[in-house]
């Protein structure tokens, strides 16, 4: 059993491949670290362009798409041919979504949060379960086979990734 475990672990470790040396500048992903007030920045704002599209969800006449680590696009699908964004729900570090009975469940940092979306134009935060997801730190970017700057744990938890020109994209997954 221990042997199997060891094999498994060594296999997983191989999935993050450090490059031998810092190569020339290249496009890659840089970690965004958690800063003090980030988690409080929750709420509805105007529709915005999609930059880091994430998971999708369908509920009644609405569609939802996560903006990875930043929030959720809310889309009016009453007429699919003219489906359009009607707002953006800002939720730092959000990656997931599920909805039941006009209540939207998602993750905000390491908390489970619940929004009442009875009025879709003005979702209300109605519940927060602190520390429901302690493992939320992002170890690698949400893109397969991408080069990225290896996270530095001393700088804090990683809540997002930004694509940019990097000099030190030493990690790859």
């Amino acid at each position, binding site marked *: 059993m221990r042997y199997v475990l060891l094999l498994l672990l060594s296999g997983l470790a191989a999935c993050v491949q450090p490059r031998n040396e810092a190569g020339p500048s290249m496009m890659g992903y840089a970690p965004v670290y958690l800063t003090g007030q980030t988690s409080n920045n929750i709420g509805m704002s105007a529709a915005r362009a999609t930059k880091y599209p994430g*998971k*999708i969800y369908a509920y009644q006449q609405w*569609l939802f798409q996560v903006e990875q680590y930043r929030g959720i696009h809310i889309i009016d699908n009453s007429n699919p041919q003219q489906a359009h964004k009607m707002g953006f729900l800002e939720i730092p570090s959000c990656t997931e979504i599920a909805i039941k009975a006009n209540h939207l469940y998602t993750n905000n940092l390491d908390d489970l949060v619940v929004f009442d979306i009875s009025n879709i134009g003005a979702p209300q935060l109605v519940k927060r379960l602190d520390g429901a997801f302690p*493992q939320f730190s992002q170890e690698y970017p949400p893109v397969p086979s991408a080069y990225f700057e290896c996270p530095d744990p001393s700088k804090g938890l990683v809540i997002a990734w930004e694509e940019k020109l990097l000099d030190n994209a030493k990690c790859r997954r």
Partner: protein
Amino acid sequence: MKQQIIVLIAAIILFGCEKAAENASFSAGGNGTGGSMARFTIVGNHLYTVDKSNLKVFEISDPAQPVFKRSVPVGFEIETIFPFKDKLFIGSTSVVHIFSIADPANPQKQGEAISPEFMRRCDPVVAKDTVAYATLRTTGPCGGTRSVLAVYDVRNVQQPVHRNAITLGAPYGLGYTGNTLYVCDQLQGLVVYDITQAYAPVQVNSLLLTGNDFIDVIPFNNLLVAWVSKGMALYNITDKANPAFLTLID
């Protein structure tokens, strides 16, 4: 099996799809429909979530007051969760863990599906009555021999039997409605299969969307909702085999 494949099986949110299709007027008490790459899913009065190693159960009988019930250790590198009837299929990079939720607040592990010839890096997954479809991706640094749409007999969910493997480029999410299966592939685009013969899918179409890769899909009534690299694309699937592009929301 001869091919080096690893299984990630999960089940589509069958109930959500079927219910939505049945109810022209939506009930306020119902839940929505997610994609095949979700880490959150709702079955009845419970929200199930997976993080890297644990399955968590929240009771949501009062939707505004989730109550944490328990955390169940599952394994390493957990990636997706999908309900199928009274089962949860939890995909990891190496093993599919199968839990019973006959007692919804107390998931019980029933078994796991693992391919003896091991290969890392796979992705999600849908299932229906007797069959599960999984995309097994081998691009990237973790190697492998080929990427496939794998077909499994899941009549005994504790011991899925490999029945077929269809070569693809770099497949990601997938979803089905009726006898039509949609698979997202980085090279071929949106690939459409007839699955009237469940274990022998027949490709009937494939579509590209300029400047976009397909990542995941949700068939939702007559609409196919697609996660693409620039956002969300919508297709009319009144004719299931011939998705008609409606709009890109980027």
